[in-house]
């Protein structure tokens, strides 16, 4: 916009009052969460220092509200904590933290229960994955670390037990994220671990920025490592089937993963976002393995045929046409990618026409998700941003990577509009954001966001949506499995508009989400006529009419 036009527009706007609808407000300081991420940076610019920050929202104690888990960094290789640039405060304990949600009404309150829960996670944390691996009705945790990973089994009494050794689920590579999925439909959640690069501080590569000063490396200087697939044997043990399943055939620097049935054959598939390399679309071959079809499906690289950074990823049916689409965040000077599925697992890059590309140009995006923040029935988008290359305007800071996050509203006409600046000013506080977990923390019927910031406090973005739209809150449980049915699909329609939503915990970056499905219903002309159809992961379906709205309810497979 030229200056003259700007002056003219300013004059017009000065005489027009437009309401600002701030929806998200940052409330970490009053929440009781005193976690501060520690990345252990000591001036050596070790690569892993700037990558951590995974978070999770899940109900660990089955009391009906979402608790919060934060993965933490550490000093490594016996480097003294005295050498840390951001020294931990006396209160700031190292090791991962679990906070119990003790909120009442609109008062958000969390309590640190890490010790009580007997969680001892002192590795260099990257990502958090949640799921019920033993079908006992409570949610377990898998921790992806730089170094050995951990599987923490929920004992059902508020405590956890580290069963990494006995379960044989360790992966000593640099793991960033993971996901649970039942790829072989035997009823048990298997485990897919995403590994990054072969990096070691014992023989570090020294990287430099444009001005010749030391800087963090990019992944291109390192060999990528294979992802791993572990089959859940159902007896507390897993078997590494990376080779047998075909996963070993690709070796790329993975950062993000999301599961969905992309080709609608009723078997769960995987999409892996790789950093600066072609992404992978693992299509389930229904015989215990996977085949990479990313290139021929149009999702390996962007429209220009170039691989992109690909950190955060999510999958959802954002256009409600019955198939699952993909969204990814990248480095600055690349733009977010939105792949639309044509129904046959062929995707086209439509980010530009959707309006989510150019606004991301200046930002490096990590955690991301499709979610309906205002319950109008359309899936909106969020990106947790934080640079990996020095921001020139922060050059005097010891960690000059801060950026503000972004929110895009789905306008309902195949277009998005960025509405970040319409939020409470606290939304725009810059941080080195990495993970982002989504869920209704205060159970008021709208989705809140927990953002993990590297070397800083997290952000707790509470949704104060004032549009007063209706909603549907569902917790889908397979009674035969005693757990939520990951991958189940819910179909409903709102004012003749079809809506499809899925039960999932994965997507984003190194983070895990509330598995309850919250469907926005908009204003809804007839509140008594909400009908849903559930497609369970075992292939059965169930139709429910006169479903209660504006409340959460659990539906088990037998319910009618």
């Amino acid at each position, binding site marked *: 916009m030229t200056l003259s036009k700007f002056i003219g527009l300013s004059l017009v706007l000065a005489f027009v009052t437009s309401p600002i609808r701030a929806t998200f407000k940052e409330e970490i300081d009053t929440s009781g969460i005193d976690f501060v991420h520690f990345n252990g940076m000591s001036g050596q610019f070790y690569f892993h220092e700037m990558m951590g920050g995974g978070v999770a929202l899940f109900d660990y104690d089955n009391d009906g509200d979402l608790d919060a888990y934060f993965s933490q960094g550490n000093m490594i290789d016996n480097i003294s904590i005295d050498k840390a640039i951001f020294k931990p405060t006396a209160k700031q304990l190292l090791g991962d933290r679990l906070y119990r949600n003790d909120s009442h009404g609109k008062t958000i309150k969390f309590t640190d229960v890490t010790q009580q829960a007997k969680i001892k996670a002192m590795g260099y944390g990257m990502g958090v994955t949640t799921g019920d691996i033993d079908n006992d009705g409570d949610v377990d945790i898998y921790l992806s670390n730089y170094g050995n990973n951990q599987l923490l089994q929920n004992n059902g009494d508020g405590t956890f037990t580290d069963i990494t050794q006995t379960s044989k689920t360790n992966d000593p590579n640099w793991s960033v994220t993971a996901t649970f999925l039942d790829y072989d439909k035997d009823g048990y959640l298997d485990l897919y671990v995403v590994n990054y690069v072969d990096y070691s501080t014992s023989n570090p590569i020294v990287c430099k920025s444009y001005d*010749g000063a030391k800087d963090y490396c990019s992944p291109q200087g390192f060999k990528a490592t294979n992802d791993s697939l572990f089959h859940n044997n159902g007896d507390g043990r897993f078997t590494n089937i990376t080779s047998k399943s075909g996963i070993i055939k690709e070796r790329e620097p993975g950062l993000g993963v999301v599961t969905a049935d992309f080709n609608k054959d009723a078997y769960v598939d995987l999409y892996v976002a790789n950093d*600066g390399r072609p992404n992978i679309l693992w299509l389930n071959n229904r015989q215990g393995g996977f085949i990479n079809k990313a290139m021929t499906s149009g999702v390996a690289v962007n429209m220009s045929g170039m691989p992109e950074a690909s950190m955060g990823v999510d999958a959802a049916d954002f256009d409600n046409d019955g198939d699952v689409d993909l969204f990814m965040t990248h480095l600055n000077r690349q733009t977010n990618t939105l792949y639309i599925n044509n129904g046959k697992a062929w995707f086209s890059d439509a980010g530009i026409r959707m309006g989510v590309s150019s606004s991301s140009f200046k930002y490096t995006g990590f955690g991301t998700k499709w979610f309906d923040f205002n319950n109008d029935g359309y899936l909106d988008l969020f990106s947790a941003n934080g640079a990996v290359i020095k921001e020139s305007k922060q050059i005097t800071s010891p960690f000059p990577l801060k950026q503000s996050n972004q929110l895009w509203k789905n306008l309902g006409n195949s277009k998005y509009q960025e509405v970040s600046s319409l939020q409470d000013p606290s939304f725009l506080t810059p941080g080195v954001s990495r993970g982002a977990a989504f869920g209704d923390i205060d159970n008021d019927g709208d989705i809140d966001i927990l953002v993990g910031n590297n070397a800083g406090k997290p952000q707790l973005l509470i949704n104060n949506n004032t549009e007063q739209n209706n909603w549907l809150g569902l917790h889908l449980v397979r009674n035969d499995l005693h757990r939520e049915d990951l991958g189940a699909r819910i179909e409903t329609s709102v004012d003749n508009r079809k809506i499809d939503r899925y039960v999932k915990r994965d997507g984003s970056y190194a983070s895990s989400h509330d598995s309850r499905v919250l469907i926005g219903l908009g204003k809804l002309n007839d509140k008594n006529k909400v009908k849903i159809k559930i497609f369970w992961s075992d292939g059965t379906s169930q139709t429910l009419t006169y479903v209660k709205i504006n409340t959460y309810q659990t539906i088990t497979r037998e319910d009618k």
Partner: protein
Amino acid sequence: MKKLLILTLIIAFNPQVFAITEIPLPDMSNADTNIVKRHDELIASFKQVKDKKEGIQLGTVYGELGMFYQAHEFTNAAQVCYKNAIEVSPFDYRWKYLLAFIQASLGLFDEAKSLYESVLKINADYLPAKIRWAKIELDTGNFSQARKLYQEVLEIAPDFSKALVGLGTLSLQENQPKKAIEYLEQAQKLQPSANQLNFLLSQAYAALGQDQKAQDYLKNKGNRTVIMFDKILQEMRLYSVSASYYAQAAINAFLNKDFPLSEQLVNHSIELDPKNANPKFTLMNIYLSTDRTEKAIELAKSLLKDNQNDDRIPYSLGLINEINGNDKEAILWYQKTLTINKTHKTAQKTAQIALANALMRTKQFNEALKILRESQVVDSQNPYTYFSEASILSYLKVCDKAIDKYMQAIKKHSGENLTYLVGFVKTVAMCDVKDDIINSNALNAAKNMYLYSPTFEVVQAFAMLEASLGHKTEAVDYQAQAIFQALTQGASKQLMAALKADMQSYEKGGKATQAIKPFDLDINPKRANSINN
């Protein structure tokens, strides 16, 4: 209030008004000594000119300083320099163009667009500005404006493939795959080896439900066979029936390698306007491309009689002699080119490069380097001069400087130039570089080249690099592929022996045994970088 109003009015009519700002000199304490030295030279010449306050000269030194900063990613300093250059020399569109480039790369799209617009107000035919502006409009979803700009480009240059690609991409975004295919297939005829087009075409065919065709395009790594352009006659309808119409049509046909048609058209043009020298240059090019060198020389000499001050003629004679391997004769003609018209920078630049190449081939490396460095002062954005300098330095095993020059050439070249990248990768391999960022850049370059265009040169370079990094298994694997390619393409015994010698070395964990040769300018199919070079 009155002053504010006047200022507002001034600003309103002069959107790009920048006050002179002091340059924020970047911290060079960690920079390479060569870069620091070059910076000092530029600052010194800037200080010399600064006080003279001569607009154009001051603008040039600001601009050149800006280009240096831009090349080394000191963005803040580059922005200030360009703004100052614009302030003192507002009609030199280069600085607006380069500033627009930076602003676009920072996501300041409105500013970038405004700058491109003002470039075009000064030079309406400067297509790079128009094409970049169009790309911004496309990337920001302003499709109607993007379309308008791309179409304007095609009106001036109907075979500007980037505009066709832009329109194709736009059509895809607007869910018009059939239209997209029309544009993209046209572009592909002009750039048959462009992989981006394969991806875009695969998207378009997929959108039409033609999945098999879509997949075929994805598998197509870029067929280098030239598809004969058979729509030349349709294009001719766009031009009025005059000598220039035939001349333009002849150029189109030449670019599409339809030499008989091109010759027919250009002769018609010459018939209509015998005094115009321009079509005769086209004819000379046709003679050269069809191995009628003697006729080309005869034509050039006849032109020389009546056009003593036209530097293109001695340049052409230099070129012809170079093609024929008469480097000494070529050098003389290039030197003559440079004496004719010192202010014509384009001719000076191309003659400099050609002279440098000739000097290089006759192993007069110091002379060649001198010419190349002079050329860089004239045009610091031409990647080829840096590439040529790099290849000489590489041959002379001046490793640090060679690598620096390759990286500059690669940065300055828009898009990817495989020759530069192969040269860079091979040099890094041969020089046993300890700098990990350079090694990682080279590895990344090799991997990307391999992914999109695994030619013999690329695979061989990749093997050399892997060997130098101690990746024995990978080196052996890629070298095996290189040997296979060499065999299927009929390589000489000498080359096969060299490849096998390298393989034996890699199998023992060693490095490449071959020396690097300087790279030639591909000006003659005979001299092209064939597998036996």
